[in-house]
């Protein structure tokens, strides 16, 4: 039983913050997950900016998921202006998002959580014994990167998305040239599901409220209504009345709870549980072959959900490139007016909600950004409480790793704009 668990620095997490587990007289007295949160800064920073600056500014909140921030932003701003985008623009946004999901999911599966499940300290030590696995992962990731580069003009902080559509249509030939690579990636993603299914996951079954964007015609990423396993279907605009943010004195990040004050889960596990019927052909087959039973409620197994989603986005990207037929203006015309608009899309880590209030000149009066990791903070703490009896029964080092692994399974990423995550587990005696 650990009196004190102390880990000086936590690896393989994108973000800045701390985990406190207070142990006193052999029982856990306090658990706190604190992650500092740049989106709060950005909400202030956006005030007074012209609406068309918003997608490029919000893209800089995160180096791993700039597309998610752009897509929730442009859709919320379009809702405020009552602008509809063309089916071609919607399809290209969907494709753009596939590139980001490929990059982010592959990184997490193989380089961040994968080492935990294969008994490695890091992707570096995994690469020592399984170089081909890590090379395959880096190659898959690079395909996502190339897709972002062709559509977004550059791979890091892409610049082509705007309110109304895109500044220009990407070259059809350049996109089609990526199809053989994407087909290779699809095969690798199928193999990754098999690999993921065979890994030794720790036991933990949690009774979650799952929340995700939902559509009846595809596995929702870009747009749709909001579906909760507890409260059914909600309009995007009703998100804020059902899910509230609360300031916790101990943290400078807002924590999200349901209107009843309970934590809820967003992310791959929530999406797969709520939307698995809408997966494409290959991902459905991968799901069937993996023999997954629903509800899938072991947080560590979000890695399996990510692997199945990786099949989905490779498959979808191939389909969308084959259908790609740019024509007409790449962006709808905007007519400025005062108003408010909200939208949610699925960042790789979960539902990302934006709302903007605009004045008559198109300047932002108020911005609200609710990122997935902030929504999951309460859930991470609740899961750790559920894990606490197991932690106390483990030797010191194993308990520490198990707590870290649980948090890493969430792929917490407030922002790559932040850096050091300092993990402190203290003994309440001092």
């Amino acid at each position, binding site marked *: 039983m650990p009196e004190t668990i102390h880990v000086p620095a936590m690896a393989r997490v994108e973000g800045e913050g701390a985990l406190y587990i207070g142990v006193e007289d052999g029982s856990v007295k306090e658990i706190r997950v604190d992650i500092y949160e740049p989106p709060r800064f950005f909400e202030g920073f956006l005030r007074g900016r012209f609406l068309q600056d918003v997608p490029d500014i919000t893209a800089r909140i995160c*180096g791993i998921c700039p597309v998610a921030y752009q897509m929730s932003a442009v859709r919320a701003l379009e809702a405020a202006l009552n602008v509809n985008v063309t089916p071609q623009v919607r399809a290209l946004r969907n494709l753009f998002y596939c590139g980001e999901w490929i990059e982010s999911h592959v990184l997490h599966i193989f380089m961040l959580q994968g080492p935990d499940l294969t008994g490695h300290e890091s992707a570096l030590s995994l690469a020592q014994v399984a170089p081909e696995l*890590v090379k395959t992962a880096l190659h898959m990731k690079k395909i996502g990167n190339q897709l972002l580069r062709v559509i977004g003009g550059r791979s890091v902080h892409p610049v082509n998305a705007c309110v109304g559509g895109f500044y220009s249509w990407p070259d059809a030939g350049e996109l089609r040239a990526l199809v053989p690579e994407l087909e290779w990636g699809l095969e690798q993603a199928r193999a990754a599901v098999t690999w993921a299914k065979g890994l030794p996951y720790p036991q933990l079954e949690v009774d979650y409220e799952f929340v995700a964007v939902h559509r009846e015609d595809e596995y929702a990423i870009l747009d749709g209504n909001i579906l909760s396993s507890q409260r059914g279907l909600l309009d995007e605009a009703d998100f804020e009345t059902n899910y509230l943010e609360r300031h916790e004195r101990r943290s400078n990040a807002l924590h999200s709870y349901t209107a009843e004050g309970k934590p809820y889960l967003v992310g791959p596990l929530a999406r797969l549980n709520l939307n698995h019927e809408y997966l494409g052909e290959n991902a459905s087959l991968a799901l069937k072959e993996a023999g997954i039973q629903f509800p899938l409620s072991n947080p560590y197994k979000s890695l399996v959900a990510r692997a199945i989603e990786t099949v989905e986005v490779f498959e979808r990207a191939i389909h969308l490139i084959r259908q790609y037929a740019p024509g007409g203006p790449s962006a709808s015309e905007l007519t400025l007016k005062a108003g408010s608009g909200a939208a949610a899309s699925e960042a790789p880590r979960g539902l990302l909600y934006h709302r903007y209030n605009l004045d008559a000149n198109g300047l932002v009066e108020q911005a609200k950004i609710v990122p997935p990791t902030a929504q999951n903070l309460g859930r991470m703490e609740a899961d750790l409480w559920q894990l606490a009896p197991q932690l106390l029964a483990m030797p010191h080092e194993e308990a520490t790793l198990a707590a870290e692994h649980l948090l890493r399974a969430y792929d917490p990423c407030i922002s790559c704009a932040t850096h050091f995550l300092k993990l402190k587990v203290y003994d309440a005696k001092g």
Partner: protein
Amino acid sequence: MPKAKLLVIGLGQDLRGDDAVGLEVVKRWQAENPEIAEDPEVVVELAPLPGLSLLSFLECVEAAILVDAVQSGAAPGTLHVLEREDLASFGSDARSAHGWGVGETLALGEDLYREKMPEQVYLLAIEAGSLELGSPMSAAVQEVVAAAARKLQDLAMQLLAPHLMPETQRASV
């Protein structure tokens, strides 16, 4: 595909105080040395937070200079020039501000793709003070941008020397 002779890459997040310095130094160097920066054998990139994507940039070049903010405990504005073998000391403990540290990324590239990695890699590192979101670069760091850009030019000339030399003299190098 033939490799370019030199990659100069500025890393950083320009909304985050001194973390912008890698980008600023490369921009200044580009403006002051267009004849080198625009040479077709030289690839110049400004990459906020590239993480592991850094490997994709490194694959295509013979030599690379990475310009980045670091925190190692020295006084803000201190310039460090690190070579490949020194980079271990800027690994996961004293990491650069980009999640996947530059040291870790290079180590992974060396392990997996030794043949694709550039022969020579320098890290021109500028010690950062404040990395607060929304704050400008600190005075101590702003003051060294010009000196860092000159240092960058020295390193670039050193790495490009064989390439810049007349054809007849190259064989003897």
